[in-house]
């Protein structure tokens, strides 16, 4: 039990008064960053990184990782209140979180989101504590073919469950793929679909698309529907937290499943975004209340939030043990480690025990501190919805514009955001689902890259996707998910014909 002794030593390090102060400061900054759409954890951490250079490395990483936790918590707030996901992995939270807020249950939705985030992160931290070395070597098994299989599974588990007509889902997804293809083709090094417009070199950034599609699109819709925010009658006292907590244990199975999905996706490292989508998709498929998902079902908030946080936390493990960041924020943290003279990699756990276990202990404490901070603020957040729409709408618009601008410091992106806003409005008016479009923009180019890398390596043979146990299993799971409804129907018919 050497790990446990190390961990307690880590707690002693993290509980020094200076480190506790740094922790709370980090959480508060992180929540602010998470609330501002577009700013995001990675940018926030990058901006605040220099602040930490004068601190000892352990305090510095505690502060940065607390900013990260804060941003993870904060991302859910705007998703639920305004349908604007602050982070890619909060997109799935909007599906049920926003309808809940509209029904006056913003407090419940926020509490559920924060609590599940905490549960997911805690689960992942426990996993890191217990099985870190083992898990790290699992991540090494993931080459391009395995990565593609994971993306394939994420797409399939999402397509198979859509309530919308399949052709509308596929149409939306294909538009997403087309948008994802714009910019530099990373395999050939050639520019694609940019038509000589230099602003398009970078392709369509996911964040710009999401801020426009969801945020601006929602404002346009609300304006049309008569300038009123529904959900102003939300309960705004702390009792709502306790009431929601009473309900939560009923969803333990969803939580556990989402934790596992999240950890797995975080380590592989496919990241928090596919984790949240996949977890939402599977919960919708297997839950008893699955039919009501999308209309404000609390379980639909629990599933993606738990998985996103488990993945976000687990993503730190490959960074520490292999030096491969599992998420953009982890990449910035990695840069920080190097500046403090710490070399992430297989030797970090051996040579820098105090640092590693201090960080892991701070994950426990930082998450706990984060949960307390955001839960006490639930009434304040929920009360935002009482502000008249005519006041809040321009504010959201400004916030969206700042968010879009800050992604690449480019005014072109603000225009692009407005265009995406109109597209989002049209999609909703015509009954096309936005989620497959967004999923394709986020994961489309990554999936394409992994697919082409695999085929380069296999000299063009598709057999590479079934070349070992791991990749075949994931591919078969994907195919099952894709044809699930057909399988279920066939099974149902067999049973009725047997009776």
């Amino acid at each position: 039990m050497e790990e446990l002794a190390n961990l307690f030593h880590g707690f002693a390090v993290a509980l020094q008064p200076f480190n506790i102060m740094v922790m709370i400061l980090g959480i508060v900054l992180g929540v602010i960053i998470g609330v501002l759409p577009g700013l995001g954890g990675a940018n926030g951490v990058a901006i605040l990184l220099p602040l930490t250079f004068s601190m000892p490395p352990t305090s510095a990483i505690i502060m940065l990782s607390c900013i990260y936790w804060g941003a993870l918590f904060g991302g859910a707030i705007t998703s639920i209140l305004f349908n604007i996901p602050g982070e890619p992995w909060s997109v799935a939270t909007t599906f049920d979180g926003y309808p809940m807020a509209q029904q006056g249950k913003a407090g419940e939705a926020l509490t559920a989101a924060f609590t599940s985030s905490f549960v997911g992160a805690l689960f992942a931290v426990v996993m890191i504590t217990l099985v870190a070395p083992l898990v790290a070597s699992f991540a090494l098994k993931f080459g391009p073919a395995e990565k593609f299989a994971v993306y394939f599974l994420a797409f399939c588990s999402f397509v198979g469950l859509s309530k919308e007509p399949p052709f509308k889902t596929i149409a939306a997804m294909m538009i997403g793929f087309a948008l994802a293809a714009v910019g530099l083709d990373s395999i050939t090094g050639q520019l694609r679909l940019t038509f000589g417009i230099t602003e398009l070199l970078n392709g369509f950034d996911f964040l710009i698309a999401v801020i426009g599609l969801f945020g601006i699109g929602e404002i346009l819709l609300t304006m049309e529907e008569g300038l009123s925010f529904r959900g102003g009658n939300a309960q705004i006292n702390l009792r709502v937290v306790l009431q929601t907590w009473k309900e939560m244990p009923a969803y333990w199975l969803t939580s556990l499943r989402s934790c596992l999905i999240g950890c797995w996706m975080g380590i592989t490292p496919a990241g928090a975004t596919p984790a949240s989508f996949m977890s939402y998709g599977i919960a919708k498929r297997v839950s008893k209340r699955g039919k009501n998902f999308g209309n404000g079902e609390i379980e639909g908030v629990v599933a993606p939030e738990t998985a996103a946080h488990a993945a976000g936390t687990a993503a730190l493990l490959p960074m520490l043990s292999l030096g491969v960041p599992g998420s953009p924020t982890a990449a910035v943290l990695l840069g920080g480690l190097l500046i403090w003279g710490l070399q992430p990699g297989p030797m970090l756990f051996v040579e820098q025990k105090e640092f590693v276990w201090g960080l892991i202990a701070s994950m426990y404490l930082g998450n706990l501190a984060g949960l307390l901070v955001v839960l006490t603020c639930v009434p304040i957040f929920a009360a935002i919805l009482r502000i008249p729409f005519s006041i809040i709408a321009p504010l959201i618009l400004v916030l969206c514009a700042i968010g879009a601008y800050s992604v690449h410091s480019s005014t072109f992106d603000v225009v692009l955001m407005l265009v995406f806003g109109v597209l989002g409005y049209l999609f909703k008016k015509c009954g096309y689902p936005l989620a497959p479009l967004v999923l394709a923009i986020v994961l489309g180019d990554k999936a394409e890259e992994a697919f082409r890398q695999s085929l380069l390596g296999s000299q063009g043979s598709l057999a590479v996707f079934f070349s070992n146990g791991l990749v075949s299993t994931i591919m078969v799971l994907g195919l099952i998910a894709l044809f699930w409804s057909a399988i279920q129907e066939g099974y149902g018919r067999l049973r009725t014909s047997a009776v």
Partner: protein
Amino acid sequence: MKRSLRVAFAAGVALAIGSIPAVAAWEPVRPVEFIVPAGTGGGADQMARTIQGIVTKHNLMKQPLVVINKSGGAGGEGFLDVKSSAGNPHKIIITLSNLFTTPLATGIPFSWKDLTPVAMLALDEFVLWVNAEKPYTSAKDYLDAVKQASGTLKMGGTGSKQEDQIITVAMEKATGAKFTYIPYKGGGEVAVQLVGNHVDSTVNNPIEAVAQWRGGKVRPLCVFDDKPMSYDEQITDGKAWKDIPTCKSQGLDIEYLMLRGIFMSPRATKDQIDYYVELFKKVRETPEWQDFMKTGAFNTSFMTGADYAKWVETEEKRHELLMKEAGFLASN
């Protein structure tokens, strides 16, 4: 104990530098944007953020230095941004080889001559790596195996038609061996793909692969430079950077070093250039910078002014030739 000593030393240096009055006639009057034409976490980004940290810690500038990543179009986004900021002295950019390769491969309207050269900070080395589980102990062993496998052995590298692939093609030309080149997004990812045996070799920069080398997961075969690296601190298993032979001594006559240099926006005045040259001279003197150079086994050449411009010009010609031979030039 060791760390507290180092902190004390750093503080001393900070005081010493801080007490020297500024001599440059021009100084930034608002925050300076430090553009990185590559993604977060890569080699250029790490260097830029280290510089930002050093500048902040030692108070080398009165205005903040803000690192901004503009990685779109293999860095084209960043270069075009600086190109279009003529006469704005509050914008500098750190470059890597994509300064040459991106305009050549994609045909975007940009050349380094559009920018104002400031200083060469260092040169980054390239090393041929294989997985430590594999039996190859010299470059010759490995290249023989590549020849025998007739094109099925995989070389992983960063980006397409950029430095890693240029070196790969140069190796093919020099030896007649054939690789399957697989492009990845970043150097760290490439290193891990090698550890996981998903590729057979890489030409990672030292800083990208050092962690895996220390962990005994990868083995360096040779360095693409005309002399061995100068760092003699032991990394793993009794070996130091110095002990890696040059590729030339192994019968593979290829040299390739990558520029880590600073440019600023067009139409900068001499005062403004001097300010940044002085700034980077101070950065180079800090212990943090020297530690960083050691970790990444950088070649610490420093150049400014006409020398630097001439060096860049020669390098551009060389890249044009290399890329033309490899068939990587944009078709238009």
